[in-house]
């Protein structure tokens, strides 16, 4: 990056735009978090105000935690997200490796077929998926959600990862073959570490939609013991009365784990996004 040649004006303008965007993007989150610490009356009287000593209240959190099932929902969401991500990454990487590395008849066609899923939203098939889950007895299980999310995430994962895997030096893989490494070892020991930034990118892109999804939990797993966090939070939203304190508190807490996962992946992610640009 050549900073010396850049003039001050455009730099300030660019930062101004970015700061403005950050403020706009973070504003809803800020409102949710601040209001979750306020009493119900204060939320409605002054939605944008910060909690003061008068309006400060943890009643929302108390309600959510007393509800008891909240930790179960939390756990369900965590299991679904982490297992789905793991499956997406491992199967996506394997398929991508096969597509990138081996010449076989129908390779290009197979790649296209796998990429088709990016263009066709999986929700179109909801009815068929539900029928399938009913007939296999998977309704109201976390497995159902994990399977659906894995299917939903794989196309993009295969697409991104195969592009990155094509960039891994052939010589390196061939050196491994000459040294007697099996194809599995070449995949796990040589190729996977080199596409780690791409894996992190795929993980982040998939993590947030899965964590936030309401559609499939509502349809495939609405039972109490398998509710996810997003679905669980809906109990506080009634037809006539909504417990805003509880909703906002639940949402605030739901942000935390995603944030932790994001921080874990973000260092890799930044490298992943820029790796194409600077190399």
């Amino acid at each position: 990056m050549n900073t010396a040649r850049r003039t001050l004006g455009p730099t300030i303008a660019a930062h101004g735009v970015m700061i403005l965007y950050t403020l706009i993007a973070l504003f809803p989150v800020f409102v949710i978090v601040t209001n979750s610490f306020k009493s119900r009356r204060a939320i409605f009287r002054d939605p944008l105000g910060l909690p003061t000593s008068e309006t400060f209240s943890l009643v929302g959190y108390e309600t959510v935690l007393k509800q008891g099932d909240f930790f179960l929902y939390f756990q369900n969401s965590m299991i679904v997200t982490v297992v789905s991500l793991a499956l997406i990454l491992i199967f996506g990487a394997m398929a991508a490796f096969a597509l990138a590395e081996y010449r076989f008849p129908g390779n290009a066609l197979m790649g296209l077929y796998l990429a088709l899923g990016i263009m066709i939203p999986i929700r179109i098939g909801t009815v068929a998926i539900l029928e399938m889950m009913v007939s296999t007895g998977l309704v109201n299980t976390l497995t159902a959600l994990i399977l659906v999310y894995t299917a939903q995430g794989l196309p993009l994962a295969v697409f991104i990862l195969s592009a990155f895997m094509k960039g891994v030096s052939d010589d390196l893989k061939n050196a491994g073959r000459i040294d007697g490494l099996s194809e599995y070892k070449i995949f796990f020991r040589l190729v996977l570490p080199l596409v780690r930034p791409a894996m992190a990118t795929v993980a982040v892109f998939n993590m947030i939609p899965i964590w936030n999804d309401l559609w499939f939990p509502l349809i495939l797993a609405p039972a109490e013991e398998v509710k996810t966090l997003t679905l669980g939070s809906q109990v506080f939203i009634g037809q006539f009365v909504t417990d805003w304190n509880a909703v906002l508190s639940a949402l605030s807490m739901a942000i935390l784990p995603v944030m932790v996962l994001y921080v874990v992946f973000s260092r890799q992610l930044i490298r992943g996004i820029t790796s194409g640009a600077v190399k």
Partner: protein
Amino acid sequence: MTALSLENVNKSFGTVHVLKDIDLTVEEGEFVVFVGPSGCGKSTLLRVIAGLEDATSGTVRIGGDVVNSVPPAKRGIAMVFQSYALYPHLTVKDNMGLGLRQEGADKSVVEAQVAKASAMLDLDSYLTRRPAELSGGQRQRVAIGRAIVRDPKLFLFDEPLSNLDAALRMNTRVEIANLHRTLSASMIYVTHDQIEAMTLADKIVVLRDGRVEQVGSPMELYNNPANRFVASFLGSPAMNFLDRSVPGLAPGRTIGIRPEYLSLSEDGQIAGTVTHVERLGGDTNLLVRTDQDETLTVRLFGQDPTEVGAQVRLGFDPARAFHFNAAQERVTADAA
């Protein structure tokens, strides 16, 4: 005993026929260089020998055994790649030892082999480093070390010097030549650089469009090229080809004269104007445009005062000139 023999080896990728009926033998302890312009199939041929590509037809024998369906690791070969291809997450020591460990060799054997190779290549002080912490030349030495450790029947080099700068290239070239003497191992070396080919090879194989054009020792090929392609590919500056400037040449014939066999002389057959002078200190290269509008290079030994724009006459010894027919094959001068 032959280290390698190829019989009628063909390779096609889909409809593209890359290697065409390659027949070749490499004797035990011989240093063979495959040379040719890019896209001539030399790297593919090396990959077929290594087992990284399957031959479409034909037989590959290494040390007398047919290895067509033997995986690369079991062929008794080691390969050095242009891009070094070191394992980025392993130390130099582990990089070098990996092949042997995969074969299930004893830990002490691996240690001993790695120590031997690293001593040979002056790598002792780098053994615990990772490839990212090494310079290009050091990486290539590690890659060569990795090959030595396996004690292979046949070494394969795939343009190992292409990524190095000029000075290092020279040093590493000498190192590889010394290595060949010390190990007296059979080696195959692929390059597009005719200087590497000339300086390293016991035997040069010139390839073009997937075919072997000529096989022979460097001086044989230099002094007795079979056709115009071989004549033009070996030698630097390249051979001059003239079909108009030399009087008395039959139509369709071309005459080839190496730059060093041309000399400035008052009664030379070729007349022209000097268009450019390269003074290298030891040599002087003149680019001359003949009156018949052909460009040729003259290599004069030592320093020469000739300036750009000078009118010169060039002479040569007819015995030193090569004659080629319209099909670019070598013919004798009498057949003209």
